[in-house]
């Protein structure tokens, strides 16, 4: 059904997959995501649709290996199929002409950022993009992001590529230089928390795209719930994008770690059984 048509390693741990899914390719818009499941007893997990080709009926996903499910996905080879794939899910990004946009992506968050940057650019905005990672080999999609950005700032923690420093330093530099009308931030939860504090300081309206734990992705379970402006919201149906300055990031960080110990144990079992990461998981 959902056949993998191509597979490209951006780095040891980050992989781009092109998958046959004509209905999703047709229906999706920037900001949407899918839920995948690999194998009969696999878990359901979300990934952002990083791009789509309507004519060929394909969608692009970029996945970082962090645990069992992402490893099982990366272990699939071209020609193999994903057992279950459903989408597009979530609310699409509300894209319009706003002026100057500051787009910030951290780590694998650059993948979901790409279609949004593209859409903002096509809507006539000036787009300044900051992408950040720990080191050079973790910077992904730089060329593709560049294509749709008026300006690109690359930050690495160790200075091995672009400028040395955190994502917030790149943001501060841009904000100091010109008026920003709106910001969008996607990345690890901690990065989003601090980047949101940065734009709040400068009174810049900001959106974040949240990556909570999910099960069904259709609003049925509440696993993905967070607090926004004091109210409980479901990220899968109300989001994944929210007003960054209203999100309770500390609560979200706690909830993200809820299954950490179980997941870590499962991952080491998986790694013991699958020493060669190219092996097909059972």
């Amino acid at each position: 059904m959902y056949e993998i048509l191509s597979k490209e390693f951006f780095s040891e741990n980050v992989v781009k997959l092109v998958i046959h899914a004509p209905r999703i390719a047709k229906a999706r818009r920037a900001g949407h995501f899918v839920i995948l499941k690999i194998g009969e007893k696999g878990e359901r997990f979300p990934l952002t649709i990083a791009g789509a080709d309507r004519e060929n009926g394909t969608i692009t996903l970029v996945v970082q290996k962090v645990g069992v499910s992402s490893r099982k996905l990366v272990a699939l080879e071209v020609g193999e199929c994903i057992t279950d794939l459903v989408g597009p899910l979530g609310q699409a990004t509300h894209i319009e002409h706003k002026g100057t946009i500051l787009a910030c992506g951290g780590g694998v968050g650059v993948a979901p950022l790409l279609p949004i940057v593209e859409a903002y650019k096509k809507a006539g905005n000036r787009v300044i993009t900051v992408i950040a990672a720990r080191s050079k080999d973790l910077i992904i999609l730089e060329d593709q992001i560049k294509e749709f950005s008026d300006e690109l700032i690359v930050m690495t923690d160790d200075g091995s590529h672009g400028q040395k420093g955190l994502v917030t330093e790149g943001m501060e530099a841009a904000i100091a230089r010109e008026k920003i009308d709106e910001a969008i931030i996607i990345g690890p939860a901690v990065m989003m928390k601090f980047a949101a504090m940065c734009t709040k300081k400068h009174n810049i309206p900001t959106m974040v795209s949240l990556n909570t734990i999910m099960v069904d992705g259709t609003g049925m379970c509440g696993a993905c719930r967070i607090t926004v402006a004091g109210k409980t919201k479901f990220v899968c149906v109300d989001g994944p994008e929210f007003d960054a300055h209203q999100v309770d990031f500390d609560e979200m960080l706690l909830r993200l770690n809820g299954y950490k110990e179980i997941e870590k144990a499962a991952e080491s079992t998986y790694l013991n059984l699958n020493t060669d990461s190219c092996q097909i998981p059972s």
Partner: protein
Amino acid sequence: MEERDTYLKSERSQPWREDLRKLISNKERTNMVRVKMNEVDAQVRIKSYVEVNSGLSMEQAQLEASRCIDCPNPTCISGCPVEINIPKFVKRIEQGEFLEAAKVLKETSTLPAVCGRVCPQEKQCEANCFYTLKLKKEPVAIGFLERFAADYEQASGEISIPEIKEKNGVKVGCIGSGPAGLTFAGEMAKSGYEVTVFEALHEIGGVLKYGIPEFRLPNRVVDVEIDALKRMGVQFETNFIVGKTATIEDLKEEGFQAFFAGSGAGLPRFMGIPGENYLGILSSNEYLTRINLMHAAELDSDTPVLSGKNVMVIGGGNTAMDSVRTAKRLGATRAMIVYRRSMDEMPARIEEIEHAKEEGIEFMTLANPIEYFADEKGRVKSVKIQKMELGEPDASGRRRPIPMEGSEEIIEAETVVVSVGVSPNPIVPDSLPDLETTKWGTIVVNPDSLQSSIPEMFAGGDIVRGGATVILAMGDGRRAAQAMHKYLTNKNA
């Protein structure tokens, strides 16, 4: 109504029924005691997901069936939302014609093996049995007998596939594969339509699969019925969310002429009290989905589930009972129900409450959580409970629980399952701006035809009723199919 009475009378006067009635005197029949369901021992069953009720033997079923006096005015039928011809199927069992009994059930109910297990019979057919109403004795075990006949048919491998009219080439779509959708699909297939069922999840069956646990309704019971539908030509598309994967407009372009929304009331409600988003506090939907749909309790499943020594479940419905009994099976030493009204008002099926008690579930009634406390990692560790007393009856006719000031107490719990109700699934209404809905988000339909404000869109089950029952959802699926058939016949004439 009259037509139905005449039909029932003529059925009752069939020679085989007359003969059967003469076989045993009514006095003898009414002196027999109600059969006891065979059950797996509580201490054994809490260590596995084995089905609690193991069914009646043939002898037990025939004996119980002979308690029914085949009333001239069978009041039980009026208690059944789909008006199963109860005395007829019961008498077929007494006669030993079990496959015939199953056929009677299938005349009006698509999933008798399911209903026999999950219907609240004590409020429906059995509440209206002559024994209950007039003799003040225990009613005929209609539910057990229904399950017996349906199981007998399933086990015989001779599931009767209904006769299918010649294919008419008209495509109709069904949104959701719960009991409402499955029934609708079967009825439309019988009338010759090309039916496609779209299901958002990766499994067919709706609540029957993701909600109601294996120990109460084994998946295989549902799968047999789904297989029968497949053999009738019904197409199933899983991982397909109507309104997201494709819109109703898209589907119309693909040739679908009408739709039935059986999309259920799948959204969990929370209470909005302090600390409710701590780790370890989850909706019953999440808890049951992880176990039933994602098989989290099995070793080879990738989906985790949080367990705890002290598990508290908030609520008193079937969903709460299913959650708390699941917690017991996951190894909880203390599995508790906290319910704000008293035992008498508990909406769960009586049998489930009895089974829960046997399994060592603690019941704290007239109690309500008001705040949660967590450890330094954000995991819930205790719950503040407030005692309640019952005041004046409210709109539902049940006495309203009123908090008692100063009655708070703290109870330890590392897992809390919130089971205080569900809301309609908004995806279909959200994708159709012209669709009329109520302020609760349910779809407005004509009560007879189940047609919505969009003529080619029919709806039924929980998306129309809010959280209701399996049998009502099935009844809706059937009525909507009849009405849609009429609508399409007129339209295409």
